[in-house]
């Protein structure tokens, strides 16, 4: 049995498609194709951070909280999504797909390794970074995918303004990284 996999790993097609990494430009082209296909078939471009807010709301409600009076969730669409639950939310399903798709890519390349957290610094970085991203994404109506990638592709000036702000933020983040988190 083992010999089959060893033989497969030496195959040139396996190497090109599954083993070796793609170039950044190949990635850019493929992601763009997927983005355009998504807009064409669903009427909306790609977005990642929106569903996270729903996930938070569902967990919050599971602990007895309620978001029904929050302005953010006041629209009919938002209420529908919340009531429908995870399995009915297309954005949530898509995000889950991203995780599994990345996992599949890693396994098929035989490159999966569980990487444990190494230090307290990493914990603080993950917590702080996550909070900043989550909060910032709500203010800008999206993240690097929604507000930036989809925003710019949609010919909205908001995308470019967001990009400029990201550049400033990345500068600040780089300084903090070098000083505290290395």
């Amino acid at each position: 049995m083992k010999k089959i996999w060893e033989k497969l790993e030496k195959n040139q097609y396996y190497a090109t498609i599954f083993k070796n990494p793609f170039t950044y430009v190949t990635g850019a082209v493929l992601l763009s194709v997927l983005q355009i296909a998504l807009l064409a078939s669903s009427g909306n471009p790609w977005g990642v951070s929106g569903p996270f807010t729903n996930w938070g709301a569902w967990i919050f409600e599971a602990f007895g909280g309620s978001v029904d009076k929050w302005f953010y969730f006041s629209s009919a669409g938002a209420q529908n999504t919340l009531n429908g639950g995870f399995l009915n939310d297309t954005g949530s399903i898509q995000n889950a797909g991203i995780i599994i798709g990345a996992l599949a890519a890693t396994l098929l390349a035989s490159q999966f390794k569980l990487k444990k957290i190494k230090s307290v610094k990493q914990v603080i970085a993950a917590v702080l970074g996550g909070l900043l991203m989550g909060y910032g994404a709500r203010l800008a109506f999206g993240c690097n995918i929604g507000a930036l990638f989809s925003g710019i592709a949609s010919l909205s000036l908001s995308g470019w303004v967001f990009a400029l702000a990201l550049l400033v933020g990345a500068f600040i983040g780089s300084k903090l990284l070098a000083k505290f988190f290395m």
Partner: protein
Amino acid sequence: MSEEVKSIQRSGTRAPRKPKKSQIPYGIALVIIIILIGVALSYKSGNLAMFWIFGIGFGFVLQKSRFCFTASFRDPWITGSTSITKAVLIAFAITTIGFTAIKYGAFVNGLPIPGMNYVVPISFATVVGGILFGTGMVIAGGCASGTLMRVGEGFMMQMLALVFFIVGSLLGAYHFGFWKINFISNGTKIFLPDYFGWFGAVVIQFLIIGCIYVAADLWQKKKMGA
């Protein structure tokens, strides 16, 4: 990549090769599960199955190309490298063409323009949001898509980051009313074709992308010497 001629002289101490058990069978098993989930979802709604497959596609491509928007904004500051920045710009250019084609096609036929939900008001909130997000993504070691990708790759640090991304999102939603009243409702949506016409908007966008691309190229040459 297996039996190359090694040209760099090394001492005998190579890392002991761990007995490799190929993970490909697990990968294939996962692909079968992915298909089964897709089929199950399609019984609920074809739409859900479609988003599942798109997610799988995005995740697969992101991981294989190690595509990271964080790196595109961070590397110019840390190492001077702009190779990912340029790839991101290429993505912007290609999607602009595709998106505009779809939108213009709808517009010209008198239909409502699709995909306008990311044409959002520009306000102080946009700037603050961007700065917060940019800082956070560099510290956390990944942006929104990058975090999801790395959760799939087995990085426990990004799993933690995801948890707090969710917390931060909920907090942002909680405060959203404040930001909406004080800043966002004073903002303006600027859809470039409304101001420059469809053709003008695309030309301007490509000019911006082109200028930044050249600037990125020069930046790398200056900072890295190549």
